[in-house]
Each structure stands twice: as structure tokens, then as C-alpha cells.
């Protein structure tokens, strides 16, 4: 096919790992670097100019999730937002903390770090990745400080029933904080902060710059800073603000919110097209996660072959995908998310995540499917399984 001839093009299907920054975002960052280099804490005119940029960005991001300006704390990204939310809510307390078995490492490892001080519960999920609500109901008690749940899963795209979860938590204990990690879902599905106390969002998954994110905090009194320093970010996150990145983040949010419905529909159409075609045209393939899922996520097991080998073969054809989670591509263990669904080890080792963006085209997916068919054929010939 014609598309295959354009081999100098890269087909980027790893948008759950990170996305290409928009030109408008790059321009905004450059503009801030060049012309707005003041410190927002300074009292002079350059400081005021920088503070205005900071306030406007904060306002825009707050509005995008229906929050107030003073409820948004800028951080260095999703990982820091998750650390701040969990550690900042539990550091002065002792009790029970609850999360799930399918979290991002920045939550799982943060919880692990609390093991000596808190009672920790990891909730099970069903075969589609939905949190066990009965177990949640049973576990939330008067000592429960916080429940943290990933909104849309980074590997399999399951979107949790946040409203129901919030109701269960607040009914059992109105004082228990509810945190969601919305790094994957932000601007890619509806998000209402009602009933939620803390929300982690980030920039580089929505065509913004890396190294910047935010934490929505409903009640800042309940959050303790975990780093010591200046008064920035309402005394909750010290350090001179990363203003160019914040400006770029706000630009990315502005565009993403303006195009939200259109982009979700576009990705959903491509997602369905790709899933149907792969499952129909390649034998022994299984979709991991639910059919109705985050619009940009596709996760498929190719039986009898190992994911990294398939990834490397697609890489030879300029197609960028990931095995499960990019963060764990250098770790040898099978994906903890796929295993939590109750899948067999060989299935967990044979998963590939294809994640789309608003720039993904049908032609790119057709080319990818052609190359996939070939690579799967070759690798199944090498395999002694099946």
C-alpha cells in the first residue's frame, strides 16, 4: 500500500505514554521564556506580569474541571500530584488507606511507602478492570483516611464509576478523602469534581509540555505540604513556579477543552475500527479491558508471543507502541494490571497497548494492522506455544 512507502514517517501510537506538544503550546512556552521571565513572587513590574500569567493559567485550568482558582496547586506532573495527594493527606494521621491493584506506579509505590504507618488495602478489580464496589463498601470505615482510585486506567482504559464510588465512600465515612488520578482521562472523558476531594491531572498527556501537572484540592486545610520551602502554591508546594510550562499547560488545556467532544468522537471511531479489525483479522487475539473505555486506549493480547518482541518488530516498521505500561517496559515482570484482571501469565506477557491521539489517522491504523499481521505471523512461527 502507498502508505507503507512513506517509511520515513513515524506512526506514533503511544499517546498514553506521552503526546506531541501542539505548535500553539510550543509558541506559548517560547513566548513566556523570552518575554515573561519574572518571578511571580517578585513585587516589581516583571513579577506582576509573571503573576498575571500564573493567575490566568490557574483560572483556566480550574474552570476546566469546575473548580475554584485557589483549589489548583501546580506540581511537576502526575507523579508529584499523586505523591502530594496521598502523603499530604496522611502524613499527620494514622489509619486505613485504600487503593486498587491496578494503579499507576506513582500511586502503588507511594502506598507501599506508607506500609509501616498505615493499614493498606488494595482493592480487587473484575475481569474488565472495574473496582469491586462490595469490597470497597466493606473496607471503608471510621479509620479510613483516604481512598485513591485511578479514573481511567493507563493500561486498559477502564473508566471507573466515580460517582458511585464517591457515594459509597461518603456514605460510609463523610470524612474519608476521595482522590482520583485523572492523568489519563483529563479532557478525554467527562470529569465532575463533585464528591471528589483531590484530583491529579497533568499536561504532557494532552499535548502540553512535560514536567508540569496540577492537583485539585477541595479543602487545602486537610493537605500538608510534603516539601519544605517558600510560600508558593498556597504553602502547599514550594519552589519558584515553572511558569513557561504552566503557560504551555494552560494553552494545552484551553485547546483540549475547546475540541473535547470532537476529539473524543474521532478517537472513539478509530478505536472501534482498529479493535474490530484486529480481532477479526488476526486469530487468537483478545481485547483487555472493557469495550466501552477511554477513547484513546486499546490493549490487545496476541497469544503465544511476547509483547516486547512484537513491539520491537513494529518498531522496525516505524510504529511506536508499548507493552502494557511504558514505565514498566524495562521491568521484566508481567503487567500487574493484566494479572489483576485474572489473566494467565503468558497472556499478560503478550499484551500491546496502542494509544491514539487527535492526530491519529485511519491510514496510519491500516498500515499498522498490515504490519501487525506480518509480525504476528513471524513471531508465532518462532514460538513453540500454541
Amino acid at each position, binding site marked *: 500500500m502507498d502508505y507503507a512507502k512513506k517509511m520515513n514517517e513515524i506512526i506514533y501510537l503511544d499517546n498514553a505514554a506521552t503526546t506531541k506538544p501542539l505548535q500553539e503550546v510550543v509558541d506559548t512556552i517560547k513566548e513566556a521564556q523570552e518575554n515573561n521571565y519574572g518571578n511571580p513572587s517578585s513585587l516589581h513590574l516583571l513579577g506582576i506580569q509573571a503573576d498575571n500569567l500564573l493567575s490566568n493559567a490557574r483560572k483556566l485550568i480550574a474552570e476546566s474541571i469546575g473548580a475554584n482558582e485557589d483549589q489548583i496547586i501546580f506540581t511537576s506532573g502526575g507523579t508529584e500530584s499523586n505523591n502530594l495527594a496521598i502523603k499530604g493527606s496522611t502524613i499527620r494521621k494514622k489509619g486505613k488507606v485504600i487503593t486498587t491493584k491496578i494503579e499507576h506506579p506513582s500511586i502503588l509505590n507511594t502506598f507501599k511507602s506508607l506500609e509501616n504507618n498505615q493499614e493498606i488495602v488494595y482493592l480487587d478489580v473484575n475481569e474488565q478492570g472495574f473496582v469491586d464496589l462490595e469490597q470497597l463498601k466493606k473496607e471503608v470505615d471510621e479509620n479510613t483516611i483516604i481512598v485513591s482510585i485511578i479514573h481511567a486506567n493507563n493500561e486498559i482504559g477502564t473508566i471507573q464509576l466515580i460517582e458511585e464510588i464517591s457515594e459509597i465512600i461518603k456514605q460510609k465515612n463523610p470524612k474519608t478523602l476521595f482522590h482520583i488520578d485523572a492523568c489519563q482521562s483529563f479532557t478525554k472523558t467527562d470529569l465532575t469534581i463533585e464528591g471528589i476531594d483531590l484530583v491529579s491531572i497533568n499536561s504532557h498527556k494532552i499535548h502540553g509540555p512535560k514536567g508540569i501537572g496540577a492537583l485539585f484540592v477541595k479543602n487545602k486545610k486537610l493537605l500538608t505540604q510534603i516539601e519544605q520551602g517558600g510560600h508558593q502554591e498556597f504553602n502547599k508546594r514550594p519552589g519558584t513556579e515553572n511558569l513557561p510550562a504552566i503557560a504551555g499547560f494552560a494553552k494545552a488545556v484551553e485547546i483540549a477543552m475547546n475540541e473535547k467532544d470532537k476529539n473524543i468522537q474521532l478517537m472513539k471511531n478509530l478505536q472501534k475500527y482498529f479493535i474490530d479489525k484486529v480481532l477479526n483479522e488476526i486469530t487468537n487475539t483478545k481485547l483487555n479491558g472493557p469495550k466501552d473505555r477511554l477513547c484513546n486506549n486499546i490493549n490487545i493480547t496476541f497469544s503465544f508471543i*511476547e509483547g516486547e518482541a512484537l513491539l*520491537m*518488530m513494529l518498531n522496525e516498521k516505524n510504529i511506536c507502541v508499548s507493552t502494557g505500561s511504558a514505565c514498566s517496559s524495562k521491568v521484566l515482570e508481567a503487567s500487574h494490571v493484566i494479572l489483576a484482571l485474572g489473566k494467565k501469565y503468558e497472556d499478560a*506477557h503478550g499484551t500491546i497497548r496502542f494509544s491514539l491521539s487527535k492526530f491519529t489517522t485511519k491510514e496510519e491504523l491500516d498500515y499498522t494492522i498490515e504490519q501487525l499481521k506480518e509480525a504476528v505471523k513471524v513471531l508465532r512461527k518462532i*514460538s*513453540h506455544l500454541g
Partner: protein
Amino acid sequence: MALKYSDKVMDHFLHPRNLGDIKNADVEVIEGNIQCGDQIQMQLKVNPETKVIEDIKFKSFGCASNIATASAITEIAKDKTIEEAKKIKWKDVSESLGGLPQIKEHCSILAVETLKKAIKEYELK
């Protein structure tokens, strides 16, 4: 940090040597653990007089370097006597491939263990 494979690893991965099955193989073994995500199947055909490995073939379930190391060890072992083949070390395999990323060195260990298991089974026959 992405995994960086040498050209030789990629060559063996994309063009594996001695892939498949031997008709009337003297021995067939499987080594490795699916739980860890890599497994190698190996077959040998040994000359009963000279004890030379006249044919060796593999199949495998694993990552690019699993496939490459299995392929490489078949090339190294072929036409060697059983006694010579016993002396093959994992470093020989990884060096023949121009080195492996540290996290993937265990692949060359699995390749050697598979060959050793095959030789042991042959000797027990």
C-alpha cells in the same frame, strides 16, 4: 531510558538461525518459565560416534533478546562436540551478539541453561 539492542541482536532477532524442528531429533527440551515471560525449546541431533552436534534447532517464547540469544547459541554450538558445547558460557553468547543490555543478560543465561539441559538429557539417554 529505552532499551538499546546491538545490530547483531537485531539481526538474530529478525533473522533467527536454526529456527524450527528437527525430524527425529535425539532430544527435545524446554527451559524457562512462562511466568517470567521467556522460554526456549531446543532440539539436538548428535552423531553417536563423534559426539558432534550435527543439528540444533530452537523455538522460543520471549522478547527480542530471548530470540536472539537462542539463535546465537545454536550457531555457537553447531558442529561442536558435546564436551566442547558444555563449555559455552553465557558471556560467550552475549559477547557474540556485541553485548546485551544489562537487564537482558539473563536471556543469555537461559540460552546456556537450555543447551546444558539438552546435553544432560542426551547423556542420560
